[in-house]
């Protein structure tokens, strides 16, 4: 026990003192925050630019419908000839020319509208233009058919389904997104942790082999003890690094957002959700977050996080023991990368589509993929017996894999020179 503590301490200090580790610990949050700021800044930059579009309307119907907005200014060139209008667009460096020709029928007209531009215009502008013309033409069609516009407007039905569970609680439609984000973040985080720190365990095993110190060490401690010490020491270093990232990142982001006055909310999904929904919806989302089984979530996160990390780092340690250098380790990476990728893909495609489907359920039981897939499923509510089976299987396989890895480790650390094959690894297990 005492030796295990010594090994953990040494591994922890060796990792933490490593120059790359220190640099990455303090540089990564800076880089990430810098990127966020850069992206936000670029986005605002783009939005500030007002496009100028020339309008050549032969019908004279639409000039009043194209109103200048925050994004686009329309300039009417209908009084000159089409060629003159084109020339002015080029000379004045406008963003394009919208040409609406005179046609006999609306149907024909709808097909023959053209947009001249040096570069293809952006999609939002085109959509707006299409909508303006489309609405106008539709209304005209209604009129031609003697339909009452007000009556049509009146008879349009708008549906907004209220979601409520059987115990009478209301939830927002966004609740699935919330669960998805929580589960996805947890699963992705676990995968990153396994890859980064599992690799570190492997490198540390290889280092001992290539420094030829291994035999000196294992004449004092049991190989299993050494392997466990390595895995634990490295994981503590990893947890420390993640904590520093979290704190530093948070502080930097807060400071940056207050200094630059930029909303640190990541763009994309989140902000569009917020824009599209009213206050009440936001309230419901917050309620949804609060209503997530946070206790279960945190607890299962810890169980699967620790379990997953141990399972994979034991494999990493065995691989490190089997090879002489990091380049040789590539051939054994498949059993690690494949289930991790499978877990992530099943998580992001199957679980989100159908959290309780057969595929999701099975993969949340198979030990190598279960930590990631189950973490993604849990926010959607998983029957306790499924979680129990999954955890039992995980624990059993940790014991089994560690036992197997320890066998390979024990033989491998004393083998130099030749690159072993899977067949030889299998033979080592039987020694």
């Amino acid at each position, binding site marked *: 026990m005492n030796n295990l503590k010594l*090994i953990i301490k040494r591994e922890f200090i060796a990792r933490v003192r*490593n120059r790359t580790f220190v640099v990455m610990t303090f540089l990564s949050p800076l880089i990430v925050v810098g990127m966020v700021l850069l992206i936000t800044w670029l986005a605002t930059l783009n939005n500030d630019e007002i496009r100028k579009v020339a309008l050549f309307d032969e019908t004279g119907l639409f000039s009043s419908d194209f109103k200048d907005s925050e994004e686009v200014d329309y300039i009417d060139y209908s009084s000159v000839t089409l060629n003159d209008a084109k020339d002015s667009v080029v000379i004045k460096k406008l963003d394009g020319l919208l040409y609406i020709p005179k046609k006999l029928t609306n149907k024909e007209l709808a097909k023959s509208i053209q947009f001249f531009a040096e570069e293809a215009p952006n999609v939002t502008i085109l959509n707006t233009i299409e909508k303006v013309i489309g609405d106008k033409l539709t209304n005209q069609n209604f009129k031609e058919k003697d339909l009452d516009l007000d009556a049509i407007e009146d008879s349009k039905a708008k549906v907004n389904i209220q979601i409520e569970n059987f115990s009478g609680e209301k939830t927002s439609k966004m609740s699935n997104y919330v669960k998805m984000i929580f589960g996805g973040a947890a699963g992705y985080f676990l995968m990153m942790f396994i890859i980064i720190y599992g690799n570190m365990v492997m490198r540390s095993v290889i280092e*001992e082999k290539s*420094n030829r110190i291994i*035999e000196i060490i294992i*004449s*004092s401690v*049991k190989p299993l003890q050494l392997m466990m010490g390595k895995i634990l020491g490295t994981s503590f270093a990893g947890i420390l690094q993640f904590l520093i990232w979290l704190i530093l990142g948070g502080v930097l982001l807060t400071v940056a957002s207050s200094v630059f006055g930029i909303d640190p909310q990541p763009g994309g999904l989140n902000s569009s959700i917020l824009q599209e929904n009213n206050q009440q919806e936001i309230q419901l989302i917050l309620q949804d977050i609060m209503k997530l089984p946070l206790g279960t979530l945190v607890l299962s996160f810890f169980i699967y996080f620790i379990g997953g990390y141990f399972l994979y780092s034991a494999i990493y340690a065995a691989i490190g023991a089997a090879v002489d250098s990091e380049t040789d380790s590539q051939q054994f990476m498949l059993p690690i990368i494949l289930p991790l990728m499978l877990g992530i893909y099943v998580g992001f495609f199957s679980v989100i589509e159908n959290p309780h489907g057969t595929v999701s359920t099975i993969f949340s039981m198979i030990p190598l993929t279960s930590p990631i897939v189950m973490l993604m499923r849990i926010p959607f509510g998983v029957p306790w017996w499924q979680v129990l089976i999954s955890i039992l299987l995980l624990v059993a396989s940790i014991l089994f894999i560690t036992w197997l890895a320890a066998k390979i480790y024990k033989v491998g650390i004393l083998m130099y020179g030749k690159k072993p094959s899977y067949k030889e690894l299998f*033979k080592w297990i039987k020694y």
Partner: protein
Amino acid sequence: MVNLLEVQQATKRFGTFTALDNVSIQVPKGSIFGLLGPNGAGKTTLIRIINQITLPDEGNVLLDNESLKPHHIRDIGYLPEERGLYKSMKVGEQALYLAQLKGLSKTEAKERLKYWFDKFDIGHWWDKKIQELSKGMAQKVQFIVTVLHKPKLLIFDEPFSGFDPINANLIKDEILQLQQEGATVIFSTHRMESVEELCDHIALINKSKKILEGKVTDIKRTYKSNTFEVGILTENSKDLYTHLQETFTVVPANFKTIDDQLKMKITLDKNTSSNDLLQYLSDKGQIMRFNEVIPGINEIFIKTITENE
């Protein structure tokens, strides 16, 4: 004599390959025991079994008349042939770490390290990283770490490789010193001259079997062939040589002299003593050289192994 270590009929197989086949050795307390054998004979496997790095499939190992247990690790100091240190760790920290793994407390380890570092005059290395030291320098640190916890049994696998002659001598003296202080030493090497110089007991392993074991003097006694190297100053050397051939087994010998002697090796049968030979030779000329040919360990090594092939 009391044995510190007894290996009893140890067998170890790796798959279909038998690395060690029913090997027993007895290492007397306070001895320097040479473990000899060609490459791949099974020496390292035997040493690893003694160090509890590998478990034997069959057989038993007794240390101080007790079956090997995990706590015995602290009674053994092992310098493996494949040795090294953490390259990016500082010398002092590393030595402390390894000493603590052997069960020393931090303060105790520090004290003893200071003693040894002063003795080897390497105190200023404490804060250097191993990668800044030469191979020989690192070997000194390894030697210190091996003996620091004052083990009863010291196992050195090729201890002199990587040392220059001066430092090799220094290490040799330290090993002898440790023996005087009561330690028992197992010594595995290919360098026969150091075996000749240091070991009082040897065991010879070939192709995973032990083929010879015992006190060096006893072994030499059994391997000597009652042969004497003789140099005589005589007028008529040709006649004497033919004459001698009638009574004894004689072959010409070659050794350096300043005058022109008759040089030969004479092997006696069991019933003839060296005195009989001397008497016979005394009136044949002036005897300049007369000494018994004692086989070197090197010779015994080669002879036993070729005989066993």
